């Protein structure tokens, strides 16, 4: 779509990256785009907030490269990354950014050819998707708000606990001796992601100016009753408070300290 080179940030596991990788990447002819590699100790180190913030600041794509399972230096770091990416894709789907802008791929230190292939493929995918609506000087306000909300959701306690415990919960019994299947858990986390995203978005909207339930219901295309339920929860959590009542409509404002 655009003639510009896509802006890609590649987070790479320290154990995949080696001198050969570096020289292969720096050979311009081999790669049709620049790629900037940020090295991490393990791909499991990647914090969802960091990825979302990278998108927020206008990256066209974020590529994560970790060690091919089962070869993680830290046993399951790559599998944790996989769970993080699953959550991130859920959140991205809510933000109007294409989830395809984020990919997790496996490689190993001696497979430069495969690594180059991964990078090239990803660049082609980014070309197809085009420039990110958040890139450049005038980012799309709506998407920006969405991504910021997703970022806050990813930073929030609930989603982080769920991703952190996913392995424990799906592979063992929980404290009540119940077994949770992967599908059940996926549904659970999907639900949680949606809820958290909506609440964080309400919070961000209310921070701009006091909002009413009706107004929010239009933004979210939801029934006012559902929005009200979120509002009630958020008031109890101390995220928002009643600002004033205009005629019969109460307006809510965000509280600074969550």
């Amino acid at each position, binding site marked *: 779509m655009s003639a510009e*080179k896509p*802006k890609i*940030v590649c*987070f790479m596991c*320290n*154990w995949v990256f*080696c*001198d*050969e990788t570096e020289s292969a990447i720096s050979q311009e002819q081999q790669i049709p785009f*620049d790629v*900037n*590699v*940020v*090295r*991490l*100790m*393990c791909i*499991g*180190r*990647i*914090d*969802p*907030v*960091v990825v979302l*913030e*990278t998108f927020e*600041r*206008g*990256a066209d794509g974020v590529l994560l490269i970790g060690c*091919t*399972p*089962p*070869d*993680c*230096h*830290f*046993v*399951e*770091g790559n*599998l*944790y990354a996989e769970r*993080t990416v699953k959550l991130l894709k859920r959140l991205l789907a809510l933000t109007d950014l294409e989830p395809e802008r984020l990919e997790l791929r*496996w490689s*190993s*230190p*001696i*497979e430069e050819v495969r690594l180059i292939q991964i990078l090239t493929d990803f660049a082609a995918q980014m070309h197809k998707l085009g420039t990110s609506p958040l890139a450049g000087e005038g980012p799309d306000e709506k998407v920006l708000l969405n991504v910021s909300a997703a970022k806050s959701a990813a*930073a929030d*306690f*609930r989603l*982080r*606990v769920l*991703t*952190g*415990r996913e*392995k*424990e919960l799906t592979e063992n019994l929980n404290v009540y001796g119940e077994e949770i299947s992967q599908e059940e858990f996926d549904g659970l986390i999907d639900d949680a992601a949606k809820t958290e995203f909506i609440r964080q978005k309400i919070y961000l909207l209310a921070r701009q100016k006091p909002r009413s339930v009706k107004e929010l219901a239009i933004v979210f295309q939801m029934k006012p009753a559902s929005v009200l339920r979120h509002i009630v929860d958020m008031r109890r959590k101390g995220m928002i408070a009643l600002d004033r009542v205009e005629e019969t409509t109460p307006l809510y404002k965000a509280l600074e300290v969550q």
Partner: protein
Amino acid sequence: MATNIRMFTKKKLPPCCAACPAHVNVQGYVSLIQRGKFKEAVELIRKDMPFPAICGRVCFSPCEDACARVNLDQAVAIRALKRIVADIEREKGRVKPEPVQKTRIEKVAIIGAGPAGLTAAYELAKLGYPVTVFERMLEPGGMMRYCIPNFRLEKFVVANEIAYIKDIGVEIKTGIEFGKDITLESLRNEGCKAVFVAIGTQLSRKMNVSGEDLEGVIQILEFLRAVSVGQHVDVGERVAVIGGGNSAIDAARTAKRLGAKEAMILYRRTRNEMPALPHEIEAAEREGIKFHFLVAPKRIIGENGKVKAIECLRMRLGEPDASGRRRPIPISFSEHQYEVDSVIPAIGQIPEKSCVPHELLDEKAKEALIPVDEITTETKIEGVFAGGDIVTGPASIIQAVGAGKQAAFSIHRYLSGQDLRAGREEVEETTWVKDWESLRQKSRRYEAPTEKPRLSFEEATRFLEETKRKAMFEAFRCLGCGPCSECLSEIDLCERDKAVVDENLCTGCNICAIVCPVAAIEKNENEVAQVNEDLCKGCGICAAHCPERAITMQRLTDENILTCALTALRRRD
């Protein structure tokens, strides 16, 4: 060479490193090989011992036996990796190291230029001592030079490693015999403050059967020495080698190369009990050497003063003996004969009593081994230390290297007037793996990655480039059992990153402890997560999952990662 010093006192070592008598930093150089840093890997090995190429060829590799990866599939091919990096360095041309400045005035004499003596000399020279090594033979290297045949350990490899030791400033005087040309007395008169006796065991053990003085019975060490200096040894057409150690295999393979039509090895136990390295036994089999197990020589039959045949008894295995192997018991009336032209008994080595000063020996002991203090390697005489085969009886190169290091440490403390027993670290084996079962399941959960070559000893000799890649792949199998910083910060990111918990934010949800791959995080009595710095490898998975974002990494914080990512973005604008 990296100047970094270990940032914490290490007590816990990965199993490979703990199993090595010289405690070579295996995990460190393997992780450097993973990154393709071959040169740095050799340098790291040289910090612990001076013989990377020699040990890469002939070490019995206790590290591989200890490797924790066996719980998963197979041990990492550590010895082959060591050989590859050392060979690559030699092929590319070793850079001559700067001689170490002589900062000490106390002269140290070392007797015997074998692995123990050379290692001690090397360690002491690195500390700045003027060291002189005295060697009876014309070339230094001891058993490595004279008794391991060229097809297993090339002479130029030994010469190269010894040249490195000379380069850093060790003086080696050859052709000087201890007890004749020099004595402890004469050394002391010349101003040597400490002496390290590492003369090894230089005589072959006799079988004590009749006919051992016949023509055609060749003692193992004389045989190997003669061949290694290029003398012609007539072994005839049929050769019998008695024994099951590496030198027996070496002798049989050498005899075959000298033109013997048939070489056989007679061993009184079975193949499983053979002390020789498995790949050496396989190589011997490939070369057509015959193995006769459960036979022991009874007498050697001669004709006109020459060997004609060897008469043997069949054996059966009884209860395990002191060495843990099953004791062979002769079966009566099972005599049988093998017609041979020569017999090479390779059943062990004993020290040369005439060389050892009487005052060092224990009069009551059967053999002329020098008794020493197990920790300090001191002998009965002050300022005289001993180590290697002369103390332990015939052992391996790496054990001698370990003894040399131990002695060098003692000599340094002795000459500095410090307590000899102090300052020694106890070694404890550690591996972070919490649960092998889950690790095993994990490897089954995914399809096996692209074909994964196993690096064999033979493969290591093939093409360098191909081997390099394979070496990296092989090194990648290392689980990294020990705490981080094993490669002494050659890998820039690894510079001892660690997790730090903000105690005010921590809610004690325990997620960090669940995700931590190395079990480095535990809740303390205040219900707050606490990081065990000795175990933390700095992966940062806990920081990425902490629900309250209470854990940050010390070096690679989220902010740092973000800054890196954003700089990357801006650069493209």
